[in-house]
């Protein structure tokens, strides 16, 4: 069962389009797994719409008011040229060009939640980071780094903390750390206050959003710090 969700503030930020691309994608993908958060988002949207419709609009200026007449005419006239059916067909075709429902890691296929299906064509090649850990970078024009991370059976990441904030969304399989077990749909936010050593018993595919590199904390693993950008 999913136990880790985005905070209420993050959901509000999501609804208001205030989050970065990577974070928005992670939240949107979480909603595909979590009907509870989906419901919350719908409630927030309804609340925002109420504010929008009750807002004071007396400040509109005269030039805008005068432009409105032409605008209404243009809108009503435009629809005569474009039939609704053709419109839908076009968007469906474009949609298929942009979207890829699966991602392939080492020959294995994984079905992705809808929003992430649009990232497959922007995903770079898989590279082995260390041991059983693989990574593929995703370009989402965001300010943070977004990656797919695959932990193969028995995969383990040395104890580390985060110099920034990391969001991990579990997509398939499961992993565990000192705080517990994580299953598909779990949305985990970690920052400098969390020190952990994740491992996966079977295997685990995650989508991660990182705003700064990891920082390895224990013994020999500190030797990895110069390479921590590999995760970034």
């Amino acid at each position: 069962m999913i136990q880790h969700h985005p905070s209420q503030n993050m959901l509000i930020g999501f609804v208001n389009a205030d989050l970065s691309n990577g974070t928005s994608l992670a939240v949107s993908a979480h909603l595909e797994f979590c009907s509870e958060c989906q419901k919350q988002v719908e409630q927030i949207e309804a609340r925002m719409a109420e504010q929008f419709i009750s807002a004071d609009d007396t400040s509109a200026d005269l030039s805008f008011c005068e432009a409105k007449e032409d605008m209404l005419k243009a809108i009503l006239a435009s629809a005569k040229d474009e039939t609704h059916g053709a419109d839908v067909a076009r968007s469906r075709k474009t949609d298929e060009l942009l979207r890829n429902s699966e991602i392939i890691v080492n020959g294995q296929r994984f079905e992705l939640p809808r929003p992430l299906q649009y990232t497959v064509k922007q995903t770079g090649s898989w590279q082995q980071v260390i041991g059983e850990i693989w990574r593929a970078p995703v370009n989402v024009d965001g300010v943070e780094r977004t990656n797919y991370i695959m932990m193969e059976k028995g995969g383990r990441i040395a104890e580390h903390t985060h110099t920034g904030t990391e969001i991990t969304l579990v997509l398939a399989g499961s992993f565990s750390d000192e705080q517990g077990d994580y299953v598909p749909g779990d949305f985990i936010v970690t920052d400098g206050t969390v020190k952990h050593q994740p491992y996966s018993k079977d295997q685990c595919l995650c989508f991660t959003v990182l705003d700064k590199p990891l920082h390895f904390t224990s013994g020999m693993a500190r030797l990895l710090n110069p390479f921590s950008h590999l995760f970034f």
Partner: protein
Amino acid sequence: MTVSTNAVLSSEIGCSRIEKQPTAGKTMQTSDLKKHQDELNDALIKVAVHRDEKAFAFIFDLLSDKLRAFAMTKLRNDALARELVQDTLMTVWRKASMYNIDKGAASTWIYTIARNLAFDLLRRNKNKESQVDAEVLWPVISDDVQDRHDEQSFAGLDSDTLKQAVNNLPDPQRQVVELLFFAELTQQQTADKLAIPVGTVKSRLRLAMARLRGQIL
């Protein structure tokens, strides 16, 4: 449908209203809000089902200034704000049939369209090749891909079992299934018959199919 646009315009849009209108309080009364929302719902359904120009002009008049205010806070640019107002209302006019009346108020649907368009306008201004567009994050207009699977029939099932299962559906879903499968109407004909947007027919069908699958497969 045949209402002349000019007649609508002269009655609904008066720029003099700006001077006349007393300064209203910042927030609207709850009863006014409810009234506005009900009127908007009715108007949007009229646009969806009958392409009703007068109903659209009502929506336009009620929302264009509010949309502009919203657009200015998001975009902080007069030309872009106008583009947003026009694009939002154009989408409402052209895509009204995609509105799902079971999911939320018309005002919520229109607000999410404006939010999505503002997001795309901002990203397009910054980076022409943005990979993440608003419909990816917040599907509002997209035709759900699941529709394609939902057209499958339940071939091979004995029809009494199926009839029984259909009878157990909530009324709005049962009506849609009966019209589509027993009366063999198209989605558009079903929407016309029930006087609801096609988007609502689709979503009710989707819910009904999920329920039927759970019951008999």
